[in-house]
């Protein structure tokens, strides 16, 4: 961090945009009042695979208000320039209305544009589509696998063969959907050859680049705006087909078009956390020192794109062991393409690895925390790099103390309260945070206020607030006098708002820009004969509350306003940047947690109720403790959903998602969420970012499901290896 006093960073502040949000004045993508906008509603394929043989749009077009029905039979050919960026996975992306093929149930096959939303919805229900359907393949267990991505060190087969203690377990993880409260939505407007899009996205830059590629437009012809995101959890990390549909419909009808996905369409119009079948074989010596692990990981992807995520990392570096082999196979199915969802890869792998560690601990009669301590590595054994910081041991110690771990009986079914069996469980969590190059711009105006801009996003973690905190301290201003702006592709470019990357990446760029502006001001002052700071060494000057003064003599100084006015400066300005992590890497840089759960399981009815949860986090410096708590609670709630409730159910007969709504796809409600507590280890991690942060938003969901599953085992003696854990598994 800079020599500046830290007044805002580290303070438990409320969201700077809180008032806007609770008064309904925060404008989300669909809420922009674009003059003359008409409405578009997508018609979804009602088969799981095949071809469209006919589309009858007569009844729809006859409806009052319906302007146009666009489908593959009348849509113009779109350039769809290759775009390896924008988070597009390898493959051939969905091309809207470009041919008669149906790749999955729910794929857009037509769009109805009308002057009112009601007319567009009714029109969409009247479009009759004929198909030549073939049997889709949507069952992960019953389809051909791609060639594996492999990892190996040592000789895992031999290691396992020679291990005195072995475990061979297969876990099934259900598909999960993000289900943010705000539906995905796009408003598209063409002004001649220029396209402006208001779009729900976690990355205006990515959406900008994809739209430019799809329509073959020069970069400067596209602008993407999105100041507020009503939840994302990863669903906004790509530009989805409906955004292209909106832009296409706007061009065809020569009107601005608003398109909002229905809740149902969110289940196949955007991505999801893929389902997994994960076999893990573990070997250890008699004292629980791991000797070998073999991971066989199968995960769903679409038939047209190969989506992969960081599901192999945790198995390589969480615990020390000489022999590891991994094979990660994607399984192409007739489904739409998955996307990262909170704690991507690591959350899925951790359920398997951390459950298996619990199984091993039970088998060996060793405390689960002690087993993990015995396998704590001294370096990252996948890269042979030292850890930048790794304080997992401390997470265990603090967590065990604060949660009352010593009260846990190692013997399952030993604690009962009436009809309820009570159990305690824990898990370790690891996440590999992203760090992406980023730019930011800061401007200090003559009135002593500042504006800072970057094309990042705020899907809920509080980017507006935390970046304002960083900027305020670096500029020496109060929170109120700094405005942070995001969500516009015209702002300085950043990477995607995901992977716990934003604080380290955008935060560093913001910090850099603001430091430069402050230094410009200090330089101006110390070289200005009229200034009380004239002749002082620049390094001896700090700024606090908009006033520059000597560090050791606060009386000697002046305000930004006075300084700028006297020097006839309307503003000072600077661009800042973050160039990414050190390359080649010098350290293994990861965020960690220990997560604890207490559950009650109804001994006869099989119901699981989470009673208490605690997360202890080694996430580097915490910029904004109040927002951090929101993140931790949110991640734990998400983990409770994965553990006990969330399951996107597909009817494999025709590839239809049968619970594509929030009544049948269950997410936790308030009553399911108990007392949740978060503790952050003090400290910072200075591996390549000036703020000392490691990122928090992803790691908070890693390990949660395993901690709950392990608590269920401790309560009942039943090891459920399928997520979600439902009553029927415990009857």
């Amino acid at each position, binding site marked *: 961090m800079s020599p500046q006093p830290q007044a805002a960073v580290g303070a438990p502040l409320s969201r700077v945009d809180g008032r806007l949000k609770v008064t309904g004045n925060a404008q989300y993508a669909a809420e922009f009042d674009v003059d003359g906008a008409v409405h578009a509603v997508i018609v979804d394929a009602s088969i799981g695979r095949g071809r469209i043989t006919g589309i009858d749009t007569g009844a729809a077009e006859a409806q009052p208000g319906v302007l146009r029905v666009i489908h593959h039979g009348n849509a113009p050919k779109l350039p769809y320039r290759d775009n390896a960026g924008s988070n597009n996975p390898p493959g051939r992306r969905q091309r809207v209305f470009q041919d008669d093929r149906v790749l999955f149930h729910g794929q857009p096959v037509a769009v109805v544009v009308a002057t009112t939303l009601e007319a567009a919805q009714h029109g969409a229900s009247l479009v009759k589509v004929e198909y030549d359907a073939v049997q889709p393949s949507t069952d992960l267990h019953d389809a051909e696998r791609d060639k594996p991505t492999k990892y190996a060190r040592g000789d895992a087969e031999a290691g396992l063969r020679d291990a005195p203690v072995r475990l061979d377990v297969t876990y099934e993880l259900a598909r999960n959907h993000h289900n943010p409260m705000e539906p995905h939505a796009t408003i598209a407007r063409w002004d001649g050859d220029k396209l402006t899009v208001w779009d729900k996205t976690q990355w205006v830059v990515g959406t900008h680049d994809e739209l430019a590629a799809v329509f073959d437009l020069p970069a400067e012809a596209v602008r993407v705006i999105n100041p507020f995101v009503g939840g994302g959890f990863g669903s906004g990390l790509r530009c989805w087909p409906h955004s292209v549909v909106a832009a296409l419909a706007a061009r065809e009808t020569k009107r601005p078009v608003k398109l909002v996905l229905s809740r149902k369409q969110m289940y196949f119009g955007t991505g999801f956390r893929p389902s997994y079948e994960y076999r893990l074989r573990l070997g250890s010596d008699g004292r629980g020192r791991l000797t070998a692990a073999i991971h066989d990981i199968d995960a769903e992807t679409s038939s047209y794109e190969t989506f992969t995520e960081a599901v192999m990392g945790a198995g390589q570096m969480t615990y020390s062991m000489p022999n590891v082999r991994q094979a990660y196979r994607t399984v192409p199915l007739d489904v739409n393409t998955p996307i990262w969802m909170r704690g991507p890869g690591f959350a899925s792998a951790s359920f398997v690895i951390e459950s298996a560690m619990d199984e091993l601990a039970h088998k060996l009669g060793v405390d689960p925390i002690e087993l993990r301590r015995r396998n704590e590595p001294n370096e990252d054994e996948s890269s042979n790099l030292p850890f930048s910081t790794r304080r997992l041991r401390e997470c265990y110690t603090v967590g065990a103390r604060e949660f009352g771990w010593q009260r846990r009986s190692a013997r399952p079914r030993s604690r009962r309260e009436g009809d309820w069996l009570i159990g305690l469980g824990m898990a370790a969590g690891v996440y590999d945070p992203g760090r992406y190059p980023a730019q930011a711009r800061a401007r200090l105006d003559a009135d002593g206020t500042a504006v800072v801009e970057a094309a990042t996003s705020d899907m809920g973690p509080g980017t507006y607030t935390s970046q304002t905190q960083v900027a305020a301290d670096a500029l020496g201003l109060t929170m109120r006098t700094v405005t942070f702006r995001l969500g516009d592709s015209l702002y300085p470019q950043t990477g995607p708002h995901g992977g716990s990357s934003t604080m380290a990446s955008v935060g560093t760029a913001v910090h850099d820009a603001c430091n430069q502006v402050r230094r410009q001001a200090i330089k101006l002052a110390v070289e200005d004969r009229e200034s009380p700071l004239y002749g002082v060494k620049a390094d001896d000057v700090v700024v606090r509350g908009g006033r520059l003064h000597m560090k050791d003599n606060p009386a000697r100084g002046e305000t930004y306003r006075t300084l700028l006015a006297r020097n006839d400066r309307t503003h000072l300005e600077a661009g800042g940047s973050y160039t990414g992590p050190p390359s080649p890497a010098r350290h293994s840089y990861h965020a960690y947690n220990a997560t604890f759960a207490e559950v009650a399981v109804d001994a*006869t*009815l099989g119901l699981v109720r989470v009673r208490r949860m605690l997360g202890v986090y080694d996430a580097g410096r915490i910029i904004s403790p109040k927002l951090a708590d929101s993140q931790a609670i949110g991640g734990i709630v998400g983990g409770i959903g994965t553990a006990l409730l969330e399951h996107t159910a597909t009817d494999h007969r025709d590839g239809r998602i049968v619970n594509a709504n929030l009544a049948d796809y269950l997410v936790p*409600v308030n*009553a*399911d969420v108990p007392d949740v507590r978060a503790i952050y280890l003090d400290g910072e991690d200075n591996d390549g970012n000036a703020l000392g942060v490691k990122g928090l938003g992803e790691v908070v969901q890693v390990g949660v499901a395993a901690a709950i599953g392990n608590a269920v085992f401790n309560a009942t003696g039943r090891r459920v290896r399928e997520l979600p854990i439902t009553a029927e598994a415990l009857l």
Partner: protein
Amino acid sequence: MHPFTYTRVSDTREALAAGRRGGRYIAGGTTLVDLMRETVERPEALVDISGLPLGEITVTERGGLRIGALVTMSEAAAHRKVRTLFPVVSEALELSASAQLRNMATIGGNIMQRTRCTYFRDVTADCNKREPGSGCAALHGVNRTHAILGTSDACVATHPSDAAVAFAALEAQVRLLGPDGERQVPFADFLLRPGSTPDREQALRKGELITAVEVPALPRPLKSGYLKVRDRQSYEFALTSAAVALHVRGGVIREARVAAGGVGTVPWKLPAVERHLVGERPSDSLWTAAAAKAAEGARPLQHNRFKVELLERTVARQLRIVGGTK
């Protein structure tokens, strides 16, 4: 949503006239509007009856309850007489839906509520209830939440209401008003099993209006209560549920009223369980033995076999909660 006309009526005569012309009655609209949005329901004319004077709860001469059809779920649940005379009714209501929905939805609408079967609600799926003759996608589809009792090859959808389970247990009467005057139908006859006509769900004649649900008096003291088993703790339909009312005098069960929800195509009255209880003294073994008869005749499907066991355990648990011991 398909286009429709909307009329508000201010007296029952007007309502019946509109109903006879084919209008669909709407009050809280919490089910109907939802289904209209999905185009599952496509009424041409809606007749808003929320202004009719059917919003009273009264105690009948003999100590039963008459709950007007337009009483909202939250009003009924909070009503002092409902809470003291038949806790099973208020508990069932309070465990239903969400507070927002309970503030809108009415008792008449609650028992008219349509199934949550996901195939019924998806107009691109086969469903005999929605489109007679198209087939039942749930029979061999994803059917974890579906019925195990009262099913047919044409339909395996559950009736979703909790309150209706309490009413079925208590042998309530549904009061109806039609062009030919008033009539009363026992709850057991009001909701229809699917058989080969799952599209016919109630014994209602064209244009008939529900005016009230009447819960008959039962000998006192009466203990009653409702247990709902579900994956999450609020805002979800039942996997299984049990409504139980017991009149115990001199240490002997004199009257028993038991019904189950989440398992039947209609609220599932359990006469065999009731018979097993009457004349016996409360004990944990009695509860278990009686509950063992709860799933008689069950026809589980591929994903809901667990409901047989869960139903028996749910009934046993609720018998114990209401009847005591342990």
